[in-house]
C-alpha cells in the first residue's frame, strides 16, 4: 500500500510492504518512503511515526508505538532513495470501530521544510480484525 502526497513537485511516497492492511500482534510492519522534487537543503527533518489515535465523542487521545527521525545532516540519508523502516506490531490497543469510540492505527510521515508548511502523509492500517460494533 502506498500514499503519494503533493503535486508533481514535491512528491512524497510512503508505502507498506503488505498489500493487505490488517496486521496482528507480533507481525512485522515494514515499508519505505522517498521524497522527490526536494533538495536536501529544503528539508529540515523527516519524522516517521507508527501511532494509534482515538476518534469519536471523546477528546482524541493518541499514543506513539515507534518513531524515527531522519536529518539531512546525516550523510547516509538521501531522501530521493527509498528509506526502509520496520517494527513489530504491539499487542494493544486493537483497531476498534465502536459507537462513540474508534481506535485507529496509522503510519505517519511528516516532512518538515525550511520556511514552508510541513508535508504530512499517512498510511492507515488495522491491528486485529475485530468487526465493527453492532448495537444489541
Amino acid at each position: 500500500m502506498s500514499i503519494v502526497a503533493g503535486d508533481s513537485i514535491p512528491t512524497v511516497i510512503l508505502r507498506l510492504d503488505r498489500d493487505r492492511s490488517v496486521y496482528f500482534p507480533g507481525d512485522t510492519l515494514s515499508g519505505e518512503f522517498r521524497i522527490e522534487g526536494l533538495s536536501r537543503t529544503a528539508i529540515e527533518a523527516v519524522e516517521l511515526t507508527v501511532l494509534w489515535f482515538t476518534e469519536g465523542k471523546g477528546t482524541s487521545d493518541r499514543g506513539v508505538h515507534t518513531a524515527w527521525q531522519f536529518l539531512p545532516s546525516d550523510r547516509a540519508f538521501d531522501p530521493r532513495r527509498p528509506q526502509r523502516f520496520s517494527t513489530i506490531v504491539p499487542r494493544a490497543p486493537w483497531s476498534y470501530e465502536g459507537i462513540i469510540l474508534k481506535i485507529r492505527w496509522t503510519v505517519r510521515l511528516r516532512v518538515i521544510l525550511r520556511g514552508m508548511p510541513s508535508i504530512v502523509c499517512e498510511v492507515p492500517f488495522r491491528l486485529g480484525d475485530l468487526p465493527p460494533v453492532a448495537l444489541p
Partner: protein
Amino acid sequence: MNRPRAWLFFLQKKRGTHRTIPPTLAFWGELGIFCLILIAGVLGVLTLVARIFVPYWRAVKDFRPQFAVVRSARVVEHQFPEGLLFRPEILVSFQAAGREYATWAYNPQSPLGDGYLPDRRSAERVLSHFQEGQGCIIHYDPKDPSQAFLFRDLPWWTWVILFVPVSLVILGMTGIVMVLQAGKEQTFLGRMVLSGGRPALPEANASDLWPTVPRPLSPPDSPGVRLPIRLPLLPTQWGHLLGWLLVCLLWNGVAVTLFAWALTILSLSRGDWSFLAFTSVLVGGGAFWTGALVRQAAREWRIGPTIVEISEQPLLPGSRYQIYLAQLGKLRVNRLTVYLVCEERAIFREGTETRRESRQVARFRLFRREAFEVHAGVPFEAFFDFQLPFQVMHSFRSPHNEIAWMIVVENVVVGLPPMKRYFPVVVYPPHSGKVSA
C-alpha cells in the same frame, strides 16, 4: 450566513460542538472562577474570625470579668463609607484594683464589626435590656481599666454562619484541584524519542503501550472465599451515596444559615419577606433531597451486600470462567439476572464544561433466577460458568476514552425499583495473533 469574527469568540455558539473556545482559555477561565470562589470564602472566614471570634478570644485571654452597675445608655451614630451605623453603649461603673471606674461599654461582637448595627431600632432594642441601676457583668482590661466591654458567649448561629465561607473554601479548593488535574492529563501516550533513522523504542519495549490496558486484580490483591478472586464493587452505590450525602449536608448547612439569617434580619427590623421566602425554598429543597437520599440508603441497606467471585483474571477472548454469586440480606426476589457488559466511555469538553458519555455496546446474559427468597444469615448462592466470545474488544483506557467490561447483577425485589450492582473485570487482547471464531 456570515460567520462571527474570530475575535468575537465569546459570541460563538456554546453548545453543539466539542470545543468552542481554546482549551487554554477554558483552563484559565475555570481556574479563575474557582480562585475567586476560594478568595471569597477565605475573606468570609477572615471577616468572621476578625469580627466575632477574635474579640471573644481576647475577652477570654486578656480581659477580666467584673460586676458593674448601669448608669446610663446611649446610641452612638457613626457615618461610614457604606452608610450610617449605630452602636448601643451603656455607661457602667465598677471597681478595679481598689479604684472606682466609669466608662462607656459596648459589645464588640457584631457581624458589621466593632459593635455597630445597621439601624437605630436594633440598637435601642439592645439597650432595652439594660435598666439604670441594674447590675451586669462587664470585662475590663487590667492594664487599662477604662477599657471595658460587654462580651457574651458566642451565639450558636456564629457557627452556622461559618458554614457559608467554609463551603466556599471547600468548593474553591476542590475546583482548583480538579482543574489542575484535568490540565495535567496527557493526551499523548507513549514515548516519542527520536533518533537518526533507527527505531526510537527498542522492540523489547513495544509493550510500553500496555498502559492502555488496565491492570486486573490478582488473587493476593482481593482473594475470594469460594473462587480465587473477589471482584470489587464499583463505587456507584455507597460511594456515590456518601458523596451526595456530603453535598446534601453542605447544601442544608448553607440553606439553614441563610434561613436563620433571614429570620434574624426580620426580627431585628422590618426585614425582607422575599428573602425569607427564598431561603424557605432552599430549606424545603434540602429537606426533600435529604429524604430521597435516606430512602436510597434504606433501599441499599435492605437489599444487602452482593458478592461476586471469579476463577481467573484477566479474561481472554474465547476462554471459560467460573463465577460465584452470593446475595445477602432478607428479601423476596422477583428476578435476579447477571450480565457481562461492555461499555464505551468518553470524556469531552463542551465550552468550559467537562462532560461524560457512555454507551453499552455488548451484553451477554450469564445467569437468571426467578421468584425466590433470601433469608437473614442464609445467603443465596450460585455457581455458573461462561465463555467469553472470541471476537470481542479488550479493555482499554486512555485519558479521555475507555472500553470497560463489567459483571452486572440486577436485582428485582418485591416493593423496590430494580437495583443494579457493577463489578469491573479486565479483558486482555488474545495471546496469539489472529483470532478465529
